[in-house]
């Protein structure tokens, strides 16, 4: 099995987001592997251990993303690829990310590609499906169980409150949902070994991609934090007066009736 996992470096879920000058401030923030990608990495390792083959983790980003790739190697991935766009591109969107990945993957003969269901920063959930489309392979999103038998694949996917059982075949791209597995912590010997595993760094040139081909199609108009929740109000007085006031407020202030 030739398995690829798409990995994104994202803000730590425990970070406080600070917006200034229309941008999210990254200074001093901690970064992690996108949590959904951790399920993807874990599943890839389990499938490789059961069926043989190789797991390659791939990310698009800058030099800093090497840390997340090393963590994936420490968990047990075999090889890592950093597509470094730092010098060539100011921005990436779902379109350009999927395009770059497809150019990298088109001649790799991947049997299985795993990605996270969404990245917790942008939250679009598009890169996986777009990539599958560009590669012309099947894809299934929000997967909570994956069974592979030869080239036949049996999948359970989460459909918001219910689950759906599907059958499909390799080559395939799936995006991992919470519940797929319990991602392992990188082990101490794993961290030592990760230092010696291959980590290839590529630039757009290496993939014969022209900067114009990956011009972003999404324009970010504004970035702002959700409004602070105002404190609730407690009505006082006897019950019938309170009910009367509530109806009034729903009418005049909340304007819902």
């Amino acid at each position, binding site marked *: 099995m030739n398995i690829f996992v798409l990995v994104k470096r994202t803000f730590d879920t425990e970070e406080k987001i600070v917006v200034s000058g229309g941008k999210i401030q990254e200074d001093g923030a901690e970064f992690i592997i996108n949590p959904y990608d951790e399920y993807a990495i874990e599943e890839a390792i389990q499938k490789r251990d059961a069926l043989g083959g190789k797991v390659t983790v791939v990310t698009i980003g800058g030099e800093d993303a090497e840390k997340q790739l090393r963590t994936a190697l*420490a968990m047990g991935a075999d090889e890592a690829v950093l597509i470094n766009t730092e010098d060539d591109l100011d921005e990436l969107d779902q379109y350009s990310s999927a395009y770059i990945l497809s150019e990298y993957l088109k001649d790799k003969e991947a049997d299985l590609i795993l990605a996270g269901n969404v990245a917790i920063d942008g939250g679009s959930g598009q890169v996986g499906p777009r990539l599958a489309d560009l590669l012309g392979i099947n894809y299934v999103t929000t997967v909570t169980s994956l069974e592979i038998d030869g080239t036949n694949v049996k999948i359970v996917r989460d459909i918001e409150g219910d689950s759906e059982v599907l059958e499909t075949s390799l080559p395939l791209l799936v995006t991992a949902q919470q519940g797929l597995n319990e991602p*392992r*912590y*990188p082990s*101490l*010997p794993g*961290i030592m070994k990760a230092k010696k595993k291959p980590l290839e760094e590529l630039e757009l040139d290496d993939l014969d991609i022209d900067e114009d081909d990956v011009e972003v199609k999404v324009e970010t108009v504004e970035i702002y934090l959700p409004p602070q929740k105002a404190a609730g109000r407690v009505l006082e007085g006897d019950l019938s007066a309170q009910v009367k006031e509530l109806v009034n407020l729903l009418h005049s202030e909340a304007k819902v009736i």
Partner: protein
Amino acid sequence: MDFRLSPDLMEMKNSIRDFIDNVVDPLAGQIDQDDHIPEHIMKLTKDIGLFGLSIPEEYGGTGIDMVGKCSIYEEIGRTSNGYTTVIGAHTGIGTVGIVDMGTEEQKRRYLPGMASGDIIGAFALTEPSAGSNAVALKTTAVRKGDKYILNGSKHYITNASIADLFTVMAVTDSSKGAKGITSFLVDKSAPGFIIGKTEEKMGLRGSHSSEIFFEDCEVPIENVLGVEGLGYVNALTILANGRAGLAARNLGSSQKLFELSVKYAHEREQFGKPIFEQQIIQHYLAEMAMDIETLRSFTYRVAWMVDQGMNVIKEAAMAKLLGSEIYNRIADKAVQIHGGLGYMKDFPIERYYRDARITKIYEGTSEIQKNIIAAQIHKEYMKTASPAHIK
């Protein structure tokens, strides 16, 4: 002078911290109450490689130096000290003897299993009549053909109930005192080896210390660890090297108590404001912070000295003593800051308070550490002083 840890070490430390804080610590209260570490926690602990902390890479371990070990110990100190002790006793006194003094054959036989946690190690020196005065051992080992026959008993042996391999000190020549003691690697399945009752303890619950008995217990000669007659010296070396590690574990527990105390002091309101605004609480926390930074600096310096191959007999004793004194002081202040809550089992503070107490006793009591420090001071003086100064 660079006080930063290497990026690799930081990655290991962070990974272990995540594991301890998110996987082990939520069960710390349960471990204390049940006096038992859940099997799945033991399994995950093995998977993450903590049992191989002291074992070189070529035998399947992590192969990190003492600074590295201390930085990991610091993190495992952040939870149930019973859990910490199971790992500490295995990776410390339970394995370092074989790593440092074992023959190639012994290493190949035991270390890979010890690294994966399939073979758990224990260290058996203390006897009912030989505690601080470890030279007074009564357990004997008599050579008979290609075997030694051991007779006697030990007590308070940590991990005995789960261990597979014991490093045992026994008297091979009673006429030679300290130089008549030899270390043996005793398999739990050795004929005549019996594990006795497990003690009920004040703290460290989840870690078990038990009696062991040798009744004509047969140990093959190839299981002698190191040189015959050097068993006591071996034991002292194993214990000395472990002392910085114990200081690091105490550092982690102290740090955890400090974090809990800072948080509580900001959240708890009395007299219309957070108790943090009371100067006395601020001073408690300032003293705790200062103690922790002192201990951190000193512990890592001693670990660094170990890595340089320097003699650390004095400094390791100081670190062990300082670590246990500071941990106990901080546990007391943490209880105080938490008021009545600090005394209640619903909250972790009282558990640390009970757990802290043993650190002044095991791996050499505080008094014995002071004796060791003083003996070294005397030795250094005798080296430099001119004969005229010495009465």
